[in-house]
């Protein structure tokens, strides 16, 4: 559950034009509606398949991928579903110490009374009835089954690490939905303080994956509500959109904004290489409000609608991260 929420959160954080995106993933309806849920603009709420929702709104993180890379995304998502997800479900929900100390306690602390007494148990039951681990022939707690589970998960992590290599994201310099998916699954393992952390140790030993997660965390889930750089990552499907008039004037703002933001972040220091990639979104006839994004010289200006910052309030799936100040 946390993995899906985090993945959706990354994708959502990438759409900087969406104002006031809140992710109320919990609540009385949480166990009846498919998670994750998001409320955009306080009157539109999305449940379930978020990437599809964003796709229909003409936001596509995979716009720049070649056909082969798109196929690779699909393949790696299948790999993670098959090998890593059962291990994640086991680690967070079925493993007794983890469930009691971390998962159930965290949900209980954040749910309103009196739901906190029975909702985590209900979530566990739902998960078990629908979980792939429930269909394995051996009983879930038998040792050989656990060994196989961890072996599959570590193999999957190794394969992801080999595929990532020394690149910043899986397909070059800009993130795609595969990056969101991988981050969503890896970040909970990496950041949650689990009593029984075998998977966490293995993941920490894979440096490039750990760096990948920290990069994305710093870029898209900033501390203290300060955006690192207000940039737009995605390009609207350009077929029917004309470039805005008054482009020249708009171009100044993004650069100013970029400079201001860079100063805010302490100059080209530690985070210089973490600047989000230069993608821009073309928007017809928008007033140049707020700060724009880092525009490519000669590219289109990137006006922002309404507020100049992205606010992600109270992202429940990521609360454990904030307690672990690394």
């Amino acid at each position: 559950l946390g993995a899906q929420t985090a993945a959706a959160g990354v994708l959502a954080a990438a759409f900087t034009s969406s104002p006031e995106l809140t992710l109320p993933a919990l609540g009385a309806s949480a166990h009846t509606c498919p998670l994750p849920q998001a409320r955009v603009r306080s009157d539109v709420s999305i449940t379930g398949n978020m990437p599809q929702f964003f796709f229909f709104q003409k936001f596509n993180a995979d716009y720049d991928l070649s056909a082969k890379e798109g196929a690779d995304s699909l393949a790696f998502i299948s790999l993670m579903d098959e090998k890593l997800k059962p291990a994640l479900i086991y680690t967070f929900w079925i493993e007794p110490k983890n469930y009691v100390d971390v998962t159930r306690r965290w949900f209980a602390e954040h749910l309103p009374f009196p739901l906190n007494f029975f909702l985590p148990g209900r979530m566990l039951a739902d998960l078990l009835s629908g979980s792939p681990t429930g269909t394995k022939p051996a009983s879930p707690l038998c040792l050989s089954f656990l060994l196989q589970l961890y072996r599959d998960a570590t193999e999957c992590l190794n394969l992801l690490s080999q595929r990532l290599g020394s690149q910043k994201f899986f397909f070059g310099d800009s993130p795609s939905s595969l990056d969101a998916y991988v981050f969503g699954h890896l970040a909970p393992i990496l950041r949650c303080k689990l009593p029984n952390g075998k998977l966490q140790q293995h993941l920490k030993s894979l440096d490039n994956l750990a760096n990948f997660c920290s990069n994305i965390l710093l870029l898209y889930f900033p501390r203290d509500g300060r955006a690192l750089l207000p940039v737009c990552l995605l390009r609207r499907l350009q077929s029917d959109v004309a470039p805005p008039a008054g482009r020249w004037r708009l171009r100044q703002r993004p650069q100013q904004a970029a400079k201001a933001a860079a100063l805010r972040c302490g100059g080209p220091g530690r985070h210089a290489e973490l600047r989000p990639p230069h993608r821009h979104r073309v928007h017809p006839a928008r007033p140049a409000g707020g700060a724009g994004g880092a525009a490519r010289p000669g590219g289109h200006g990137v006006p922002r609608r309404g507020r100049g910052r992205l606010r992600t309030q109270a992202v429940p799936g990521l609360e454990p991260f904030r307690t672990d100040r690394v």
Partner: protein
Amino acid sequence: MSLAAEAFVSQMAAAEPWPENATLYQPLKGEEDQILLSDSASSLAVQTYLRMCGLPVQVVCRPNAEYMSPSGKIPFIHVGNQVVSELGPIVQFSKAKGHSLSDGLDDVQRAEMKAYMELVNNMLLTAELFIQWCDEATVSQITRHRYGTPYSWPLNLILAYQKQWEVRRKMNAVGWGGKTVDQVYEDVSQCCQALSQRLGTQPYFFKIPTELDALVFGHLFTILTTQLTNTELLERVRSYSNLLSFCRRIEQTYFESKDS
């Protein structure tokens, strides 16, 4: 199996060379057709892989092959005094004996190969299972009849229903329970598109034939040559010409030369 036992088994496997009398077991095929689409696909994939490695194996048909298999899945091979089922463990087993197809690949390619094998298993195999057990038309006309062929009434019906419930449970577990047949066909198209894009104009998925080629061939060839209630699945796969020529090429290289 614990780690120590596994190490012991692989040591034993490595000790002996591949014997001449290795056998591969699958359900009945031929006059009394018991074998289903998904089992046939997996079995063909394993046979192709073993032919690619140059390992001799005899194919034996038994009605209770599914129950003999250690994991309940078809096919399984009986080599020496060991029994191994499913393509993944068979690949590892043959690697322990010193026969491997994917040694020449670098790390990134091996990661991609494993990922694509999971894609095929996740999408194509699940789609095949769905179509043959969860689509009412196919179940009532083809599957139930075929599955219970070697048994007499009422056992054939009981076994067929039992298997159907088991597969339905599995579909619910992986989230395919609520899908319609058209959505499943869409998923198959998507998977074939991904495979087609990955294959491009190359003869094989990587420079040399690997287990991924065997797996893809097994599934696609079976889909192309099996008659179902409608030709929707067939048409979808057939629309990718490079996959068609890929199947033809592997069939000519590994199957026709042996028969002639």
